[in-house]
């Protein structure tokens, strides 16, 4: 979902440059897990701004509600209870699209213009171009996109690309009551994170750090984690994520190689015919059979 833009960095299934005359500052959302209280105001703001209401589900015995991301719930709080140094820690992570600098969804997408990466780093789905194949789900290292059961289109967090385009912060950042969700330029967010990490370290979290995984070129949604050495503690946040080598093979190397190989076989056949001529039935055999018939 987005407006026509002049600041497109990458466009899915497109081999020529996208309109990119306008350069914009790289933005980022910083989620400070250590100050999140799990109030879900971000979830409410997300559904309100985007004007989408998910079906009311059932309590599954934990605080996660809804239990997972859906085509209508683009962000969910994931609650993890872990024991560290004999103390209970309640780790609450706001899950949603990470807006990778090297997006696996965009790499895998076969539909031209269904996935757009803006110069500011936001990765956006344009559902009107989506064909519903689910390749974005296959390509994503974070298990984020969801295919709607109703219209078979892929949906996920837009980082409020419509708000950011007019100088506003994403709805979730705007509403967060503790300031756990910050929004600004990627540089500003890194500086802010650095201060938070110093504070956390001074309070005994000596492995505190920033989650900005370089395996996907960095992300435009970053986390401050108390245990940055073990991101998997936070309900399976991947440690060192990257685009799967299978996806890179499929939508990287194999694409031109297979296309050239198929063309080579087709052209090879044509040139074989032109250079060697057809394989005709020999005149001798035909005459021989005619003679037999005449007998």
């Amino acid at each position, binding site marked *: 979902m987005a407006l026509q833009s002049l600041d497109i960095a990458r466009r899915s299934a497109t081999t020529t440059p996208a309109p990119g005359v306008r350069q914009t500052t790289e933005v980022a959302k910083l989620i400070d897990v250590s100050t999140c209280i799990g109030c879900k105001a971000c979830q409410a703001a997300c559904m309100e701004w985007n004007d989408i209401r998910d079906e009311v589900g059932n309590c599954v015995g934990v605080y996660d509600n809804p239990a997972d991301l859906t085509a209508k719930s683009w962000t969910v709080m994931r609650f993890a209870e872990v024991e560290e140094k004999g103390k209970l820690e309640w780790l609450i992570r706001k899950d949603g699209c990470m807006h990778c600098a090297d997006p696996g969804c965009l790499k895998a997408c076969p539909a*031209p213009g269904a996935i757009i990466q803006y110069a500011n780093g936001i990765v956006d789905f344009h559902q009107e171009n989506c064909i519903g194949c689910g390749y974005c789900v296959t390509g994503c290292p974070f298990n984020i996109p969801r295919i709607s059961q109703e219209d078979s289109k892929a949906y996920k967090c837009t980082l409020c690309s419509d708000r950011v385009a007019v100088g506003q912060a994403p709805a979730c950042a705007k509403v967060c009551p503790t300031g756990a969700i910050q929004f600004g330029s990627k540089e500003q967010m890194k500086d802010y994170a650095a201060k938070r990490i110093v504070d956390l370290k001074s309070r005994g979290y000596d492995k505190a750090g920033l989650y900005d995984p370089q395996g996907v070129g960095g992300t435009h949604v970053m986390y401050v984690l108390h245990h940055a050495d073990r991101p998997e503690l936070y309900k399976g946040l991947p440690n060192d994520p990257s685009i799967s080598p299978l996806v890179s093979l499929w939508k990287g190397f194999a694409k031109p190689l297979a296309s050239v190989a198929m063309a080579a076989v087709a052209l090879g056949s044509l040139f074989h015919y032109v250079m060697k001529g057809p394989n005709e039935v020999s005149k001798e055999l035909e005459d021989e059979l005619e003679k037999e018939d005449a007998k």
Partner: protein
Amino acid sequence: MIRNPKDLTRYTAHERANHWLVGICFILLALSGLAFFHPAFFPLTQLFGGGVWARILHPYIGVIMAASFLVMFLRFRSLNTMTPADKEWLSRAGEMMSGDDHNMPEQGKYNGGQKAMFWAMSLSVLLLFVSGIFLWRAYFSLPVDVVRLGAVVHAAIAAIMIAMIFVHVYAALWVRGTVRAMVYGTVTRAWAKQHHRAWYRQVTGKS
């Protein structure tokens, strides 16, 4: 082409219909599948009513092809057993390609190349069917690593199979008098004697 009552029947009407059902499905699958593989081929989705329709139709056509190929496989399986003569034929395939088929070993209904193609295509269709199921999100939801593996296998085997079909079709065009076998089922006796002498002897009782 003048039909001679002495022409030899190579394929029955049912065999031909079966082959063309597979062939039509294959062409539709290749056109729609290529569209999802490389952006250069994406405009092919227009033949199917757009990208969404191509995505919806491709797997159903795949199921029809898999089923009709299975029937064809059962029909022709026993005729495609590899023999030592086939292996010798394959080792001399280069001579044949360069236009000299005088020293080729005598062949039955199918030569070594056709048999190799038969088994390669059978394996390909099996792999395409299984990996295709992995990718069919309308009905199946498998772990993402399985889907990723399925995507690579599906694309790689499809590219190989498209290349094999080019060879298959070209061979039929190159060896004159072959296409008619798949259109109205008969070949001339001279054709049979030249290319499949053992089969010729078997069906005519002549030397």
